[in-house]
C-alpha cells in the first residue's frame, strides 16, 4: 500500500512539475520520469508485460519523439510569453480541473467498490501472446495497420517539403503570352 502511495506521489509530482516548468526540455525529461513512475505502478500491480511496454514505448520512444519535436520547433528567440500565458487561463484550467477532480473523487468515494483485494491474477507472456493472437487477432492486425498508417502519415506530414507557391506563380506571370508552359515548375 505504501509502495503504491509512494509511486503515485512521485509520478504525480513529476507530472505536475513537467506541466508547470517553462523550459520545454525539462518538461520533457520530467514527463519521462512520470512515465517511468507509471511503469513502476504497473509492475506493482502485477502487469509486468504492460510495464515493459510502457518503458519501451513511452520512456524509450515517445520521449525521444517529444524531445525531437521540442528541439525542432524551438523558436529563433525564446518565446516572450511566459507560461501559463495568462492568469485567467490558468484560473479557468484550475477550476475546470478541480471540478473534474471533485466529480471523480466523489464518484470513487461513493461507489460501492469491492473492498477486499482479490489474489493478484497472474498473466504469463505466453498467455498474453495466445490471447493477442487468438481472440484479439483482428484488433491486433488493425492496430498494426493503424501504426503503419500513422507512421506514414507522420512522415508525410512532417517531411513534405512543398515548393514555395510564390515561385512558380512568378514563373507563369513572367512568361510572355502564348508561349508554352515550361516543363519544369509547371508540373503540379
Amino acid at each position, binding site marked *: 500500500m505504501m509502495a503504491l502511495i509512494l509511486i503515485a506521489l512521485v509520478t504525480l509530482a513529476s507530472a505536475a512539475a513537467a506541466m508547470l516548468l517553462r523550459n520545454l526540455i525539462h518538461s520533457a525529461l520530467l514527463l519521462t520520469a512520470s512515465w517511468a513512475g507509471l511503469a513502476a505502478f504497473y509492475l506493482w500491480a502485477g502487469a509486468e508485460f504492460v510495464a515493459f511496454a510502457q518503458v519501451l514505448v513511452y520512456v524509450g520512444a515517445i520521449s525521444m519523439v517529444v524531445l525531437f519535436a521540442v528541439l525542432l520547433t524551438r523558436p529563433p528567440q525564446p518565446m516572450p510569453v511566459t507560461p501559463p500565458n495568462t492568469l485567467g487561463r490558468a484560473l*479557468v484550467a484550475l477550476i*475546470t*480541473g478541480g471540478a473534474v477532480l471533485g*466529480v471523480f473523487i466523489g*464518484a470513487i468515494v461513493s461507489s460501492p467498490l469491492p473492498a477486499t483485494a482479490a489474489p493478484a491474477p497472474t498473466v504469463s507472456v505466453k498467455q498474453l501472446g495466445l490471447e493477442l493472437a487468438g481472440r484479439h487477432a483482428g484488433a491486433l492486425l488493425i492496430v498494426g495497420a493503424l501504426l503503419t498508417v500513422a507512421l506514414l502519415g507522420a512522415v508525410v506530414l512532417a517531411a513534405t517539403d512543398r515548393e514555395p507557391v510564390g515561385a512558380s506563380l512568378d514563373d507563369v506571370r513572367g512568361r510572355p503570352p502564348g508561349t508554352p508552359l515550361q516543363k519544369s515548375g509547371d508540373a503540379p
Partner: protein
Amino acid sequence: MSLSVQLLWLIPALPLLAAVVGTLAPRGEFKLSASTAIAALTLSFLLSCGALITALADPSAHLTSNFTWFDLGHGAVRLGWLLDPLTALMCVMVTFVGLLIFVFSTGYMRDDANAKQFFCFLSLFAAAMLGLIIANSLLLLFVCWELVGLASYLLIGFWFHKPEAAAAAKKAFITTRIGDLGLLLGLLWLYDSTGTLLLYDEGQGVLDPVVLAGLGGSTAIGLLIFCGAVGKSGQFPLHVWLPDAMEGPTPVSALIHAATMVAAGVFLMARVFPLLTPDALIVIAFTGAITALLGALIACAQSDLKRILAFSTVSQLGYMMLAIGVGSWVAAIFHLLTHAFFKALLFLGAGSVIHAAHHEQDIRALGGLRGPMKTTFVTFAIGMMALAGVPFLFSGFWSKEAVLHAAHGWGFSQIPFYAGLVAVVLTAFYMTRLVAEVFFGHPRGNGAAHAHENTAAMTLPLGLLAACTILLGAIGTPWWPWLQRTLDPEFLSEPGGAGLMATSIVLVALGLGAGWALYGRKLRQKSAAADPLAVIAPRAFAFLAARMKFDKLYAATFGRLSDTLAACADALDRHVWDGVVRLLARLGRFTGLVNREADEEGLNAGFDATSESIRATAKAYSRAHTGDAHGYLLMIAFGFVVLVFAVLVGGGR
C-alpha cells in the same frame, strides 16, 4: 378430247403464266410477250373446247372440284372449280374472242413503246375473267372479279400519261368498287347465313336446293349481289364509267365491252339465278329496262365513234339484265354470247378505223371510208346489222328476239317489254347514223382522207368475228333452241313468237329508215355542220349529248358529299380533336402557371424563410467554432461535469 373438271384451273392459269412471263421479260420484249400471251390463250381456247365437250356430255350436271384455300379454326375457307355448260360456253367465248382481240392487238399496238406491258395486262385480264367464270365459289369469283377490275384499271389507264386516261381508269375502278362493296356485303350475308360460299358442293353449296330452301333474307342478298353486277356491267345508275373507259386503247375497249368485264356482271347474275327471289327480279328487270333505254337514247347524240359503241353496250347490257329480270337467264346468256362477238367485231372495226385514220375518233371528222377500207366496212356493217337486229341472217336478231319474247311473257309488268321495243328502234337508228357518218360520203378530216386498209393481223380477226356473228344465230333459233336446252334442260320453247317477231322486224325497219332518212339521204358535208337531230330538237340533243348530265349530277351530289365529308373529317382532326388536345395542353400550361405563382408566394416563401433561419443558426454555430482547441477541451470538461451533476440531481443511477 375432253377436259376433266380437276384440270379446269389450267384455263385461267395459262394466261396468268403468260402475264407473269411478260412481266418478268426485259423491257421492249414485245414479241416475246405477245407470242406468249397468244400461245397461252390458244391453249386455253383448246382446253375450253375440251371442257365444253365434257360439259355437253351431261348438260344438267354441275361438275365440281373443291379444295381448301385456308383453314380457319372453325371450318375452312374453300374454293373450287365448276364445270357446266354455262361455264364451258363462256370459256369458249372468252378465249376465242379474246384470242382474236390479242391477234388484232399485235397489229394495233405494234408501235407503242409499252406494248410488252400491254400484253401482260391483257393476259391478266383474260386470266381473271376465266377464273371468274370457272369459279365454283363466290369468294373465288369475287377475287377474280376484283382482279378483272384491276386489269381494267390498268388497261383503261394504259396511256397513263394522258390525264384523261388516268382519270377514266380511276373513275372506272371507283365506280365499280361501289358496286363491289354491295357484292361483298351480299357475299358476307350469304356466308353468314349458309356458312359456305361454294356454289355447288354435293348438296351443301349455296345454289343447291336444300340450302336455297332454308335461306332467309335472300331478296336482300340477291339485290346486294346485283349491286356488284350493276357496277361491273354498267347498269343504271353506275353506268357512267363505261363510256369513259374508252380512253383505253381500242382492243381494250373491245375486250371490256365484249368478252370480259361487262359480261362478268351478267354472268354473275345468271350464275346465281336460283338465288334470286321474284322481288329481286322485279328490281333487276326494271333496272335493265331503264339501262337499255337510257343507253340507246344517249347513244343517239354522241359523236365519238367509240362512245356510241360504248353506250350501245350499256343499252345491250340493259337487255341482258332485263332478260334475267324477267326470268330468262338463258336468253340473257344467249344475248351475251352473240353480243360478245358482234360487239368485239364492232370495236375492232372501230379500232381498225381509228388506227387507219390516225386516231381520229370523231364521226363528224371521218367519212367516206367505205372505199379505202373495204374489209373493215363489210365486217363493220355485219356487226352493225347484228346489233341493230336485222332479221334472220344475223345472230343479234335471234338473241334479241329471245329477250323480247321473254319480256313479253313476263307476268308482272309489260313496261320493260315496251322499253325494250323502243330501244330496238333507237338501236337501229343510231347504228345507221354511225355507219352513214363514218363510211359514206367523203372524208371530212385529215385522218380519214389518208386512211387505208390495215394489215392482216387486224383484218383477219374481223373476218372471223363477222363469220361467227352470222353463224352464231343458228344455235338459238326458236326452231332449234339448242343453246337454251343445253343451258337449261327444263327449257320449253313457247310457241306464238311469230307476231312478236313481225313487230320487231317492223320496228327495226323503222329505226333503219329513220336513220337513213336523217343521215344517209343527205350526207354530211363538213365536219362542223350541225347534226340533223340537233336541228330538229336542239335541247333534247344537247341534253343527250351531255349524257343526260349524269356526271354533273354525280359530281354535284356524291362528289360534293365526299368532298364535304373529307373536309369535315380533316377539319374535325385539325380543329376539333387537335383543338381539344391543344386546349388540354394550354390548360396544363395554365395550371403550371398558377402552380408556379402559388409556389412563389406560398411554398417558396416558406421555404425561403425556413432556409434563412437555418442559415442564421448555422452562422451562429459556426461562430462558436473558433478553431480554438483549448476552448473545445474546456467545453468538454465542463460538459462532463455538468452532465454528471445533471445525472445526480435528476436522480439517475
